[in-house]
């Protein structure tokens, strides 16, 4: 190499290393951006959602006198149920601020506490009718606006017209605060109730149970179906057979068909043709089963493929039938991989919502579903429904529901890891 060439190369080096540095920086920035988004998303969800795990309560002194309630202690349970607890609550609230006279303010006073307050009293009385005629001190749920104020989301300095809490309410709340009548407690409602139009009374239990039903059924259908299909395709299917190839093409394509298409299938076939009950976990699980089947089959096949042929030959060599060698030796060895694939598929299904909108699992469900054919909704769809509500308190609960959903997904992934470890030790 002549020195001129060495010089030429040397001359180009500075620029080339600058380009090298820049390229490397692009890569670094890409990763940083992606991770930053992840952090931002998590921070956003958690900062919005964590406050939802507590809710605001107001201490009321109520008089459960028979006259206001319209029933006596020896009334039938039915009478007790329909007694006028609402008036008791109203009196209790008014007792806090006896001076309030103006109509608008009186109305505002009533809505200081949640609509749930009267049911709280009802529950107390139904549990112990002897309470009638006594004075009681109860902590009742505050209205969601009060809840938001107490959590510090209301800016006192903002112009009154922009606030949901008006000046006179501020005075009340300050007084309650001073008297120790307002307090934050763990939000049990969120975990023990179904959906509600009132954010402070809304909970995820019905959606959670819907998810549990739907996912259990999905697992029940998808696991055996997927594993059997995978075993057949990997171990028994003839090679170069048109139908077998066709099945494989189908599986590969189904793996990337948009999920909403499975919803259309569910609507047209399961609901319209087979007349299965709309909105039910049963139909939902059918749709999800078909959706995650390719994932399970592909993962299971990979797991089966990775079992060395010597295992099969060994089993066949000692006189086992092909089926025995597969089911007794190959499948147990492939189990960790199969389970991992199944759990990945299930984790996908747990977070899926689009196809379930199609089969009507998007209903307003207050009651906890009691069976696989009851109308139900699931956690992601509940999130979708709440996300649509304008109230700030719903935003908070949506984020909280997301936290629960993410917790489930993390749990499932941990389960996958633990299961894999277990099996690894055994085999």
């Amino acid at each position, binding site marked *: *190499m002549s020195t001129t*060439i060495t010089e*030429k*190369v*040397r*001359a*180009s*080096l500075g620029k080339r*290393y600058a380009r090298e540095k820049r390229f490397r920086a692009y890569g670094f920035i890409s990763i940083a951006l992606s991770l930053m988004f992840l952090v931002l998303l998590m921070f956003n969800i958690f900062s919005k959602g964590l406050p939802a795990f507590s809710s605001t309560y107001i201490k009321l002194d109520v008089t459960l006198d028979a006259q206001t309630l319209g029933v006596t202690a020896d009334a039938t349970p039915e009478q007790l149920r329909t007694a006028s607890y609402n008036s008791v609550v109203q009196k209790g609230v008014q007792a806090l601020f006896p001076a309030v006279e103006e109509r608008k303010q009186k109305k505002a006073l009533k809505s200081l506490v949640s609509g749930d307050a009267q049911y709280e009293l009802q529950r107390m009385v139904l549990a112990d009718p002897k309470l009638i005629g006594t004075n009681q001190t109860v902590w009742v749920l505050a209205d969601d606006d009060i809840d938001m104020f107490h959590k510090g989301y209301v800016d006192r300095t903002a112009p009154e017209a922009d606030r949901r809490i008006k000046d006179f309410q501020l005075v009340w709340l300050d007084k309650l605060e001073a008297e120790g009548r307002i307090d934050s407690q763990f939000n049990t409602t969120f975990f023990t109730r179904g959906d509600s139009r009132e954010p402070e009374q809304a909970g995820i239990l019905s959606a959670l149970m819907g998810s549990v039903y739907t996912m259990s059924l999905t697992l029940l259908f998808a696991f055996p179906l997927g594993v059997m299909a995978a075993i057949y395709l990997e171990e028994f299917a003839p090679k170069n057979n048109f139908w077998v190839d066709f099945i494989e093409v189908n599986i590969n394509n189904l793996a990337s068909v948009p999920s909403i298409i499975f919803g259309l299938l569910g609507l047209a076939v399961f609901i319209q043709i087979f007349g299965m009950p709309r909105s039910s976990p049963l139909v939902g699980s059918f749709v999800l089963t078909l959706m995650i089947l390719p994932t399970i089959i592909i993962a299971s096949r990979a797991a089966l493929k990775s079992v060395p042929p010597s295992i099969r030959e060994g089993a066949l060599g000692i006189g086992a039938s092909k089926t025995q060698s597969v089911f007794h030796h190959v499948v147990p060895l492939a189990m960790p991989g199969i389970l991992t694939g199944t759990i990945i598929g299930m984790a996908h299904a747990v977070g899926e919502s689009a196809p379930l909108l199609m089969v009507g699992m998007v209903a307003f469900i207050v009651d906890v579903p009691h069976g696989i054919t009851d109308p139900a909704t699931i956690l992601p769809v509940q999130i979708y429904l709440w996300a649509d509500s304008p109230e700030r308190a719903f935003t908070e609960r949506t984020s909280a529901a997301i936290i629960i959903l993410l917790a489930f997904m993390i749990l499932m992934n941990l389960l996958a890891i633990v299961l894999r470890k277990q099996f690894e030790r055994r085999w």
Partner: protein
Amino acid sequence: MTEATLNMAAAAPQTHKPAAGGREEFAHDITGTVGKPFLDGKDTKFFSRGVNVFYTGNKQAIFDVNVDIGRNEVIAMIGPSGCGKSTFLRCLNRMNDTIAGCRVTGDIRLDGEDIHGKEQDPVLLRARVGMVFQKPNPFPKSIYDNVAYGPRLHGLAANRAELDEIVESSLTKAGLFKEVKDRLQTPGTGLSGGQQQRLCIARTIAVSPEVILMDEPTSALDPIATATIEELIDELRQSFTICIVTHSMQQAARISQRTAYFHMGKLVEVNNTKTVFTNPQHQLTENYITGRFG
């Protein structure tokens, strides 16, 4: 000690101790190698003393290699599989830097310049010391672009005409031009194995390196293609220094002036090719060339 970093821009590994100036380096312990490993400073192209190479997990592949490589000579490196021929060859243009966890110590100089020196640069070094690999590895580009790759990278051609000229002369020197001149724009991967290897040689000489390292360049080729490449090597000797690793002792005998025999990471013997094959001084060398090895 840090690992040889993946980053091409990295300065020399800290493990390296530049030898003191003067001829002090000749005092290095050379008891390991028999024959004539040194050229006594005359026309030395590559100078290596005390070279050790470690792979991941401190697994040492090369032990204290001391040898000189002369200008415009063909030196053949032979030895049983896994003895470290490739590893040593890759030290000479710092290709080992690209292997994660690989660490090189010792003193290697090209024309008296320490190749691990601070002012040295792996990119420049590799432009000066080209490499041809065992398996032909043309880039997924046209034949023309394959050969033009180096000149373009290093900015060796001022314009298209110059580039054309470089490509043509490199292909001609590699004895490939006649065969491919009508299809310079077709993919290089479409050539036969022998043609691909000659393309890789053309690609290497397009940047006019001073040294060409060849790692078993003909092991994937048939005898005819091998013969073509051997002829080529003989011609290239006029303008380049060539280090070639080969498993074929006949090949070593045919094309090289000097031969180095490696055994289990140690350089056992270096001598004129004729001497090595007719009168080996070390028992291991004799065992190997007479086929009594393993």
